[in-house]
């Protein structure tokens, strides 16, 4: 419950700031009208950028992969000795 209250407060604050900007006309009116769309587009771009950067820096851990394969081989051998069908060979 607390989390959504925080989000709604943030949205209300941003809307109040935007309406204030409209009223006092610090920046030209046409800019203020375009500001929400600009923020949404930039938020989408930022999300895409984070996904791309995360993809580029994803670690593959080759040692862990090797250890895992060893564990799988051991488990297969042990189960075969006990007579259980291990499936794909």
């Amino acid at each position, binding site marked *: 419950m607390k989390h959504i209250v925080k989000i709604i407060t943030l949205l209300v604050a941003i809307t109040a700031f935007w309406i204030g900007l409209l009223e006092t006309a610090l920046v030209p009116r046409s800019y203020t009208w375009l500001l929400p769309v600009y923020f949404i587009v930039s938020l989408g771009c930022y999300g895409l950028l984070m996904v*791309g950067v995360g993809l580029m820096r*994803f670690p593959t851990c080759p040692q862990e992969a090797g250890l895992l394969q060893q564990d799988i081989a051991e488990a297969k051998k042990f189960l075969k000795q006990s007579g259980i069908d291990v499936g794909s060979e």
Partner: protein
Amino acid sequence: MELADRAVGFLLSVISLSIFTYYTFWVIILPFVDGDHFIHKYFLPREYAILIPVVAGVALLCFLCAFIGLVMLKSKKKA
């Protein structure tokens, strides 16, 4: 395999950065430029700066609703 991942990630970052710079230029910088500068040739009229994101957003919403509806129908048919 990690090379393909890195290439896709790099492509995504490049696309997002180019969209961001193009849109920033379009909305913020272009109104300050004179009307007969050559750069205006490369940018569409400013109404499209609102139209294109809104149309894309509506299309995304429609696609999401259709997808959810399809999945719900499929699960109901099985059960």
